């Protein structure tokens, strides 16, 4: 075990701050909360599958396998995919709050409850 417990705490902090931000009334805070949340999820995956220092999953030129043990490449691939997906979704969300602000005229989620009830 290297720094996984540290990351575990960091993940908790990110989850907490993200939650707090999403409980605000501001659209901007909402979207920032979502961004933090996605970072938290990625770090969680990173931490849970184990951390390795200084051994990226790369194979030196001319070799068939890495020289020694390397960091688990699979979570990295998953996180990469997740980062990209989150980017797409968050880009959408960012523009959405922009447009919502335009049509509603306020950066206030409490002005946006007409579609319920």
């Amino acid at each position, binding site marked *: 075990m290297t720094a996984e417990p540290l990351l575990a705490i960091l993940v908790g902090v990110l989850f907490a701050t993200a939650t707090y931000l999403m409980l605000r009334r501001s659209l901007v805070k909402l979207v920032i909360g979502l961004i933090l949340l996605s970072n938290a999820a990625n770090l969680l995956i990173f931490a849970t599958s184990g951390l390795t*220092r*200084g*051994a*990226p999953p*790369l194979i030196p030129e001319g070799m068939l396998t890495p020289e020694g043990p390397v960091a688990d490449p699979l979570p990295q691939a998953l996180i990469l995919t997740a980062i990209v997906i989150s980017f797409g979704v968050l880009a959408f969300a960012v523009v959405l709050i922009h447009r919502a602000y335009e049509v509603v005229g306020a950066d206030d989620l409490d002005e946006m409850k007409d579609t319920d009830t």
Partner: protein
Amino acid sequence: MPILDWAVTATFVILSLALVIIFIRLIKGPSLPDRVVALELIASLTVGFIATHAVATRMANFLDVAVVLALTAFLAAVGFARYLEKGGERSDD
């Protein structure tokens, strides 16, 4: 190599210290451009961290991250500058 390892550790500490200091500037602001300046320096510090880490681990591959960082951190500054020019909220506090 003890000297190098010592230097690497010291470098990490110095960089960390620098990071903490510039973070204070980022929080204090007071204006957005001040924060952008801080962010720029943090990008540079990140390059420094990566370089140090590459030496510490003897893995040169990490330098690639620094290449990208050097190029793109600039973009954020351009974005902020444009934001300010277009008349966004500026005093911000």
